[in-house]
């Protein structure tokens, strides 16, 4: 490794768009000096994770098989994979969807289109995230979601059932 260069971190990138997958792979390799492993959908991404043990993962949201939200949950819910930095990359730009992605455990939520340079910067940021940062973010997300909302969940659930029964 040359002085000042990053070590060869491994990035696992999961996206069902082969053209975008290759474009981002090239960018990460050339601009970031990362070793990149590709997976074409959520199921392949989960399987590859345990073979590759990546330092960081980039995950598309809309995918066949397992979607990006499910993949993030599966990874964050297992002590064997819970600490890996995760970046969600998606065309879904609504605030609620971003909140859901971060609430499920993603470290960053990037909206497409994203340039290879922006993605490299995001991966570098993600590699520095520690457990304390994640705890602080979860506390912040919990605070953001209005306390009243949880109060309404029980009644909302009952309303949903009532509507279905009508």
């Amino acid at each position, binding site marked *: 490794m040359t002085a000042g260069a990053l070590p060869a971190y491994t990035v696992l990138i999961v996206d069902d768009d082969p053209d975008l997958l290759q474009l981002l792979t090239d960018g990460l390799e050339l601009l970031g000096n990362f070793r990149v492993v590709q997976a074409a959908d959520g199921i392949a991404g989960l399987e590859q994770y345990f073979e590759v043990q990546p330092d960081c993962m980039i995950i598309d949201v809309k995918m066949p098989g397992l*979607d990006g939200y499910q993949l993030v949950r599966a990874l964050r819910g297992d002590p064997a994979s819970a600490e890996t930095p995760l970046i969600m990359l998606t065309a879904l730009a609504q605030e609620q969807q971003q909140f859901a992605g971060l609430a499920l455990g993603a470290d960053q939520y990037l909206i497409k289109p994203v340039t290879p340079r922006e993605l490299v910067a995001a991966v570098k940021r993600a590699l520095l995230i520690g457990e304390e940062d994640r705890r602080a973010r979860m506390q912040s997300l919990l605070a953001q979601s209005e306390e009243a909302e949880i109060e309404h969940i029980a009644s909302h659930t009952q309303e*949903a059932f009532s509507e279905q029964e009508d």
Partner: protein
Amino acid sequence: MLKQNLPLVVVADPDPEYQRHIVQSLSSSCRCLVTRTLRETYQAIQSERPALVTLELDQPDGDGLTLIRFLQEDIQLRSILIACVTRRAAVKEKIQAFRAGADDYLVKPLTPMMNFYGRMLLLLRAGHFARAAR
């Protein structure tokens, strides 16, 4: 907030240690109802209509996946959020559970790093957004 206004969580786990752990973790923000078999769990779901079920897939009277699939086929029960909290750690088990309709999957043991309480609370608040986005 009145206790009766808190969301109801069915804790479906045959292991008394995990029953206690999960109930204690959630008790400040949820009401909890413990069940020990799939049959008990299904009965509780039908009668109580919880917001969330935490489900150990290994149950004394069958496979929890069966219950997930059963709930998904029922138009009146499919809106209930399901978090598998299980000792099954294989990738194929996780894939099967999500494809059956599970909203979350946590592998035991629950470590502090997994932040079970925060995660379940955020699932209750944001789980339906994630479903809608699919």
